């Protein structure tokens, strides 16, 4: 059983009903990890609100009692960002799963934070609309979690990550006060606090209602799959496509290790297993534009040395080409008991060299590293296979991850493109930000949460948060 104060448990139960307060060990252990297997932590208690009023009441109660808390979506995050420890209350928002309204004329939807990403697109489909950000976990992840992480996905190459699609937020701040940020059209209505809140990793408050932009489902879509004899040739074709001015809906690359894992799994998509790299290019738009761009892209792919190019237009055929990409992480589960899905970004032009470095790092630490990533925006996902029971192996994985991050930063990149910093990447933050910038991030966080109780000890290493504090407002 939890070591939680029985009085707190009673008070939480009075808000949500006792069945939605999880104190048994087995129940709490359900929440000990997110999608990243290298971090685990069991919360003091998990409380599952079913309404906006309940969320507000919980946050106010925890504020009064000075108890730290962590909000959580579906737990599909890949940075250990939604973990809570034995002193901290976890607030899963999965019961807050109502689509409150879809306005097809304005192309907007208002939703609760626990709505599953893919469900919103399904609900908008009858209006010819969809929600563009599509993380690989879209069948399970929640849009509240997407807001916290500024989630991306393959199609954000053309349509932008979550931040480009959220126009307004109703939020409860950690002191229990409420604020409505933004407006349905998207103008910020004051400083752009919507833009600041999106990607704040649960440290600024909880989004109670989220207003998002919906996009028309394109009239025509074409998916091309090209295979290459070298990764370098594949990445060079990516550069040629982007430089031409064509913005594909998605541009995804899988290396040989990844292709072989997919083809050996139940998700086999017919990718050629002898290819050094497979590139998926999706073009969407009007029929005429897609046809014209397809011809150009095929030319770039051929010029870069593509061995074969397959093309799919029907939804079914496209889904088959995509299946291997979407299920790549699952397929890699076959290779080893555990998998670290890394996330880093490099300038597109640095892709070939950085991929060589990753291969070299893998060889040096004797690790299997498979790459599947968003090539169009240089967002790498090196997948490192390991077995968590092997402590020495875990240490090698950690050191290899750090070297990969350092290589990406040295190439002018970033330590995370879409997974967030969470608990996992805090130690890398000083690689890209100086102490003053980190201290300023902490200070902005305290503007939302002076007591630092929302998702404590994430994103910015605590030592940087003590260096500078603003003087009081006059």
């Amino acid at each position, binding site marked *: 059983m939890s070591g939680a104060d029985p009085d707190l448990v009673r008070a939480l139960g009075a808000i949500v009903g006792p069945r939605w307060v999880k104190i048994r060990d087995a129940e709490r252990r359900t929440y000990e990890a997110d999608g990243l297997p290298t971090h685990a932590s069991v919360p003091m208690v998990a409380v599952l609100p079913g309404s906006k009023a309940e969320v507000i009441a919980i946050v106010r109660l925890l504020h009064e009692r000075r108890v730290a808390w962590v909000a959580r979506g579906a737990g599909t995050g890949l940075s250990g960002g939604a973990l809570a420890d034995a002193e901290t209350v976890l607030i899963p928002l999965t019961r807050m799963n109502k689509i409150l309204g879809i306005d097809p004329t304005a192309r907007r939807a208002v939703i609760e934070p626990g709505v599953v990403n893919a469900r919103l697109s399904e609900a908008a489909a009858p209006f010819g609309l969809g929600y563009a950000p599509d993380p690989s976990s879209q069948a399970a992840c929640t849009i509240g979690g997407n807001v916290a992480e500024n989630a991306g996905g393959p199609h954000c190459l053309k349509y932008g990550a979550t931040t480009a699609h959220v126009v307004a937020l109703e939020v409860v701040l950690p002191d229990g006060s409420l604020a409505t940020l933004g407006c349905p059209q998207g103008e910020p209505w004051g400083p*752009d606090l919507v833009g600041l809140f999106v990607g704040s990793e649960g440290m600024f408050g909880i989004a109670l209602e989220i207003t998002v932009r919906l996009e028309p489902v394109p009239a025509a879509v074409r998916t091309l799959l090209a295979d290459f004899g070298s990764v370098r040739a594949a990445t060079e074709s990516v550069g040629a496509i982007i430089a031409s001015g064509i913005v594909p809906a998605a541009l995804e690359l899988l290396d040989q290790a990844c292709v072989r894992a997919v083809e050996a799994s139940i998700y086999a998509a017919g990718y050629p297993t002898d290819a050094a790299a497979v590139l998926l290019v999706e073009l969407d738009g009007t029929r005429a534009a897609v046809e014209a761009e397809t011809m150009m892209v095929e030319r770039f792919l051929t010029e870069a040395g593509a061995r074969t190019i397959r093309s799919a237009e029907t939804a079914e055929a496209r889904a088959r080409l995509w299946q291997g990409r979407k299920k790549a992480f699952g397929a890699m589960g076959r290779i080893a008991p555990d998998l670290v899905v890394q996330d880093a970004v490099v300038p*597109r032009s640095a892709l070939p060299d950085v991929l060589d470095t990753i291969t070299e790092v893998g060889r040096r630490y004797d690790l299997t590293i498979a790459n599947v990533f968003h090539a169009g*925006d*240089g967002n790498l996902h090196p997948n490192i296979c390991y077995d968590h029971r092997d402590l020495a192996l875990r240490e090698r994985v950690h050191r290899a991850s750090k070297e990969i991050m350092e290589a990406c930063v040295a190439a002018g990149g970033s330590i995370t*493109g879409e997974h967030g910093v969470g608990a996992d990447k805090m130690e890398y933050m000083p690689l890209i930000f100086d102490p003053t910038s980190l201290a300023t991030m902490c*200070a902005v966080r305290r503007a*939302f949460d002076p007591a630092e109780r929302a998702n404590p000890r994430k994103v910015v290493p605590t030592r940087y948060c003590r260096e500078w504090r603003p003087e009081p407002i006059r």
Partner: protein
Amino acid sequence: MSRLILDLLGAEFGVAVTRDPDGLPRVAPRTSDETAAALGLAHRHGWRVRVEGRGTWMPADAPADLVVTTTGLDRIGSIAPADLVATVQAGTPLRTLAAALAGHRTWLALDPPGSPDRSLGSVLATATAGPARHRFGPVRDHVLGTTVATADGRLVRAGGTVVKNVAGFDLTKLQIGGFGGFGIITEANVRLRAMPAARRTAVATGALDPLFHAAQAIVAAEVDAIVIELLSPMVTGSADWRLLVEIAGTEAGATSELARARDAAGDVALMPASGGALGVAAGQAFLEGPVSIRAGALPASLPDIADLVVEELGPGRMSLGPGRGGLRWSGTTSVERIRRLRGLLAHREIPVTLERAPWPIREGAGHFGELREGVAPLSARVRAVFDPTGVLVAPLEGRDG
């Protein structure tokens, strides 16, 4: 006081210190570090600072002890055409930047109102997007990272140089459209686009209603346009409204999309036009009125809101975005009229942002007006992080009617 400031600044900056036309000491730092040092000095001495760009957008009339101008920050640090990113100092004129980018077959897809010589920093700090926001989104979508000098002299870097990045809190968002209240942007990493092979522009002329319906039909047909914008008669100096449609892409693609736009427009005749000239003229027209506002209205409500804006603020130059929404008005008006308009539109969840005005109007109405309950204290706390003692003269808030 002014003598003291000149002496102290002179010791730190040498030749870069001058006096502005009103006799105020003016410093033109050449680097981010110098900008931070100037603000640090102001912070320590309790001077109030007015920030200026190239003097083509916001009037240089805010009362202050010291003027910091970004005209010395005029270097283009790097252009990476393969990565479609440029690092640019904030005082760089857009025209200079565009010429440099054209040499690399790239462009920054921002077409803000005002002079082509506006500084990049002015566009970012006021978040004034032009008609190309239809395709390329608001100003914030073009900025990957910023370097900012805070009012107490720190240098803060946010974001980065890559197109996708979620490392740390997105402090860049505060600077874009922050009207200088959250520090001085000294440098920005901006996202570029590859220069399209072809651009085609078409214009229709007539009354607002039929043009608006034609524009809606073009939007509904998903025509792949970079601009769909309605310009009021005063913008183009004609008797009628104009619908401006601009398409970019391959030669064949642009031609076929323009044909689709014509089909969708039905009876409204879209005629070929010279796009660049019209766009620049329309942008400049917004300088003719002393006050410029934008209203965050959804597309369907634009004709109604346009009527209301004219009724409340008076006649003016207007542009409406029937795709993404949003309305810009410029003309002559008063603090009271802006307050009343804000009061009326707040009920419809439409914010009104004051983009440009003489000081008495900025001071009276504030760039944002009255922030909503809960937002005002939060905004004040965030602002205090960047300007703890109120050094920067940036009237963000005001009372609404």
